[in-house]
């Protein structure tokens, strides 16, 4: 699915009129990636259907959603900080004890967008795991363009200013013309692939930690449940799931329990519940 020229023109006219923001041609992929969750949240099958309906019947509430989605700040490094602090202070020390045989930690950045979360995870693991340990970060996203962008691992000057300590910028990035590129030492532990979280997921080795943040907010309850059940199948039984601050499994999927992790919360699959089982109360 790609936006047609007329769809892009419709969206760019709207945001220019309402938010004075100019979307340059070539930003089609960005517009599409940002509008996918909006389309879903209003029950449209995809962005094309959502825009077609909106052009037929203008709806101020839906127009507002488009503007919000396209004017949100770009992703920061170590976004929200607390989940990363929880990894360093709580989760990784525990995994270092429980994974002492394999000496390997696998982390999934679900909905990885342009890759900042996945690489922030890599920096955190690189700095926290003891010598002799290895790690793998997998980032997945529904947008081909975003997967490509994350793989490129190049960020603009403006992007590297966002929440990234200067000491880590000089340690984990190198200059690539006007941009900054993640060093190969870090890149070799991070991979990206295309994935739709609401469809049956491909079989993969399970993860010790899943970051599924600010994704569920865009889905209806049934879809949230599907995504959480899909995630549970790929989470090790003693693994940790991190959601966005405004998200929870409570009332959606009771197979998870909320646990304290540093100054934030994480979710773990309840013991005794078969992974991925749907429990009805």
């Amino acid at each position, binding site marked *: 699915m790609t936006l047609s020229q007329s769809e892009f023109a419709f969206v760019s006219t709207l945001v220019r009129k309402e938010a004075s923001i100019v979307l340059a041609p070539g930003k089609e992929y960005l517009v599409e990636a940002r509008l996918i969750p909006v389309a879903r949240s209003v029950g449209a099958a995809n962005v094309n259907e959502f825009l077609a309906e909106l052009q037929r019947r203008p709806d101020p509430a839906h127009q507002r959603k488009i503007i919000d989605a396209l004017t949100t700040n770009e992703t920061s490094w170590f976004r929200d900080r607390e989940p990363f602090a929880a990894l360093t202070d709580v989760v990784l020390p525990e995994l270092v004890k429980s994974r002492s045989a394999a000496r390997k930690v696998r982390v999934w950045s679900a909905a990885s967008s342009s890759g900042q979360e996945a690489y922030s995870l890599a920096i955190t693991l690189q700095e926290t795991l003891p010598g002799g340990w290895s790690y793998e970060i997998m980032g997945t996203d529904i947008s081909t363009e975003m997967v490509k962008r994350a793989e490129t691992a190049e960020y603009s*000057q403006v992007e590297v*200013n966002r929440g990234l300590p200067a000491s880590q910028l000089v340690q984990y990035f190198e200059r690539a013309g006007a941009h900054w590129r993640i060093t190969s030492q870090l890149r070799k532990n991070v991979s990206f692939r295309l994935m739709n979280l609401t469809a049956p997921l491909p079989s993969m080795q399970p993860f010790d930690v899943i970051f599924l943040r600010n994704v569920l907010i865009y889905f209806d309850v049934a879809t949230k449940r599907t995504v959480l059940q899909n995630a549970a199948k790929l989470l090790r039984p003693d693994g940790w799931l991190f959601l966005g601050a405004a998200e929870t499994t409570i009332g959606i999927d009771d197979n998870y329990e909320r646990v304290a992790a540093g100054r934030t919360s994480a979710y773990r699959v309840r013991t005794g519940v078969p992974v991925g089982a749907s429990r009805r109360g």
Partner: protein
Amino acid sequence: MTPMRAMVIDDSRAMRMILKRIVTKLNFDAVEAGDGQEALDLLADMTEVPELALIDWNMPNMNGLEFVTNVRADPRLREMTLVMVTTESEQSQIVRALAAGAHEYVIKPFTEGAMIEKLALLGLVPTGANS
């Protein structure tokens, strides 16, 4: 709550205004200086040392790196948090500034949100102040 104090050191008046506006919003009292020497002179007369200095690199009389080195050599100014705000974007320059004692480094051009995030990293504003 007593406002914290910030020193904005840049030879561009426009840049000083931009930075001053940002830190004032964050409840800092801001003092301006046009170069490193002027900033040191102002500091010498102050009874209370500002918590924060935002420092341009390329300035007449005394550049930002020299200012940082001077501040780090003065025990009276030990508590100041030093943030370089500059167009100097070479990796080696960032390394030099950090080695001289700068705590953080913001490359121009920056957004207000990016500046606030950097100050949040330093514990000078609550995390999420810009959201």
